[in-house]
């Protein structure tokens, strides 16, 4: 079993979001960066669980600069066997997908894992792009993944429900809540992570076709308008006449 888990680095959920003066770039000053939660909690942990029962190798892959190595070491501490960093400063989902596909195309992975989306750009784009480059089936927003020989059974979240499906290895999957439970790396994991292989690979050329050019903060809320608990007719009036939502 050869499993690839693509991990992204994102600002922590609780970070205050700000941009440089002309709004062209995220202001990273004072921001805590973490492994994208869906990549870590669901994709990486499920890959490690499968490796633990079936044997094989879990490779964690990040497309990013050397500063991301703290995040990559955390993936190794949680249980990945080895890691690859494709050295670059990615500016678009298209760039990231191209790098992953170029690396994976000759590696014969059985399953390529992604989180359902990143918590910064919320795009959910890269997994489908990689699946297309590699001509592999793609299952998005999977909340359950079981393997029986070379056949996988998955459940995926759809609008207001669940779809159950089967697919043969190899395939690409994006992981949502339910696929696994978050793991806290233990001391042994943290110690062994320091000596696990982390390979640096150069990026291939790619011209961005769509990228963020301008960031703004949403308009500030006017502030909450409080209604007394015994004045629910007034709340209904406000929702109807002022907010116009009922």
């Amino acid at each position, binding site marked *: 079993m050869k499993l690839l888990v693509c991990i992204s680095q994102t600002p922590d959920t*609780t970070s205050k*979001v700000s*941009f440089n003066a002309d709004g062209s770039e995220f202001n990273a000053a004072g921001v805590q960066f973490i492994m994208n939660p*869906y990549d870590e909690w669901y994709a990486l942990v499920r890959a490690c669980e499968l490796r633990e029962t079936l044997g094989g190798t879990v490779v964690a892959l990040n497309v990013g600069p050397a500063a991301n190595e703290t995040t990559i070491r955390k993936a190794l501490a949680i249980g990945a066997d080895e890691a690859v960093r494709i050295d670059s400063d990615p500016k678009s*989902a*298209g760039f990231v*997908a191209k790098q992953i596909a170029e690396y994976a195309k000759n590696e014969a992975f059985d399953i390529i894992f992604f989180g359902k989306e990143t*918590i*910064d*750009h*919320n795009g*959910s*784009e890269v997994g*489908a*792009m990689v*699946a*297309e480059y590699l001509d592999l089936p*793609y*299952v*998005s927003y999977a*909340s359950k993944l079981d393997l029986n020989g070379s056949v996988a059974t998955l459940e*995926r*979240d*759809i*609008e*207001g*429900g669940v*779809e*159950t*499906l*089967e*697919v043969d290895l190899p*395939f690409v999957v994006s992981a949502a*809540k339910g696929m696994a439970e978050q793991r806290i790396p233990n001391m042994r994991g943290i110690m062994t992570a320091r000596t696990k292989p982390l390979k640096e690979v150069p990026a291939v050329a790619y011209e*961005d*076709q*769509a*990228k*963020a*050019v*301008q*960031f*703004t*903060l*949403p308009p500030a*809320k*006017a502030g*909450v*308008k409080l*209604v*007394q*608990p*015994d004045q*629910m*007719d007034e*709340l*209904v009036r406000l*929702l109807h006449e002022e*907010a116009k939502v*009922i």
Partner: protein
Amino acid sequence: MVLVFAESPRGQFKKSAFEAVTYGRKVADAMGTSCAALVLGNAANAGQLGQYGAVKVFQVTDTAFDAFDSQTYASAIAEVAGKNGAKVLVLSHSSTGKSLAGRLAVRLNAGLVSGVNSLPSAQGNSLKVKKSVFSGKAIAEFEISSDVKVISLMGNAVKPESLGAAVSAETITVGAAKGRIRVKSVKTQEGTVPLPEAEIVVSAGRGMKGPENWGMVEELATSLGATTACSRPVADAHWRPHHEHVGQTGIAIRPNLYIAIGISGAIQHLAGVNNSKVIVVINKDPEAPFFKAADYGVVGDLFEVVPQLNAAIKKFKAG
């Protein structure tokens, strides 16, 4: 041409398909070109998409599309887009659209922006379009510079509008593509609007004290024609089903009205709901962080406030 892929899961169009066609028509008008819609599968009355602005509706009535597989769907959509020289492809940012958008971008050598929430502006050959990023904490404008462009539209971002008249759908065929996904079953909640599409959502949290108290939440939702939702601790404690969980790890929604009952408003919860147009918070704790993100607030005991709100809504609806 602007080509809109209008989803018809299990043979039924949903509101998101009408939103996508309306959006596609407006993009086409801005670019001085026409708007066509593509339907995969046997949905009845595909021609109704004309009412939302499609001047042409293509339909591939092949049972191969009864179950969803991103490879067969992307192959068909790309073929129709290519044959008709589509410059912009519009999808819904749904579970289906998210599986297709990246594939189509690669296949068509197109720039992709997913989850957009407003109309693009054209500048020469490039389009600029906005979307919500950082879980609603910021807005990003993206520039798409490729010849062919792929856009997926966030649900509830535009209203379906009457921009034309029904047409008769043109049945077409596409080359066979081999599907490798075998769909075994699809389970959906009957009779309720799925959360991502709901215009009004009534959501409740730990303040409810236990699942036995949810009756009043459901009654309020029924009075409003709303869909019910819940916070993470409530889903984790199995007080409510997993698919009701809204927030960062659950579902992100953007209804017109979000009523939060007994939910403190942790940042992870806000990440899933702060794109709602209007937020009402009912909580007995005046220091609950959710009040900072709310438009209207009621500080009080939810066990008294919710039945009174329900009575007021019923009175209002009765006119």
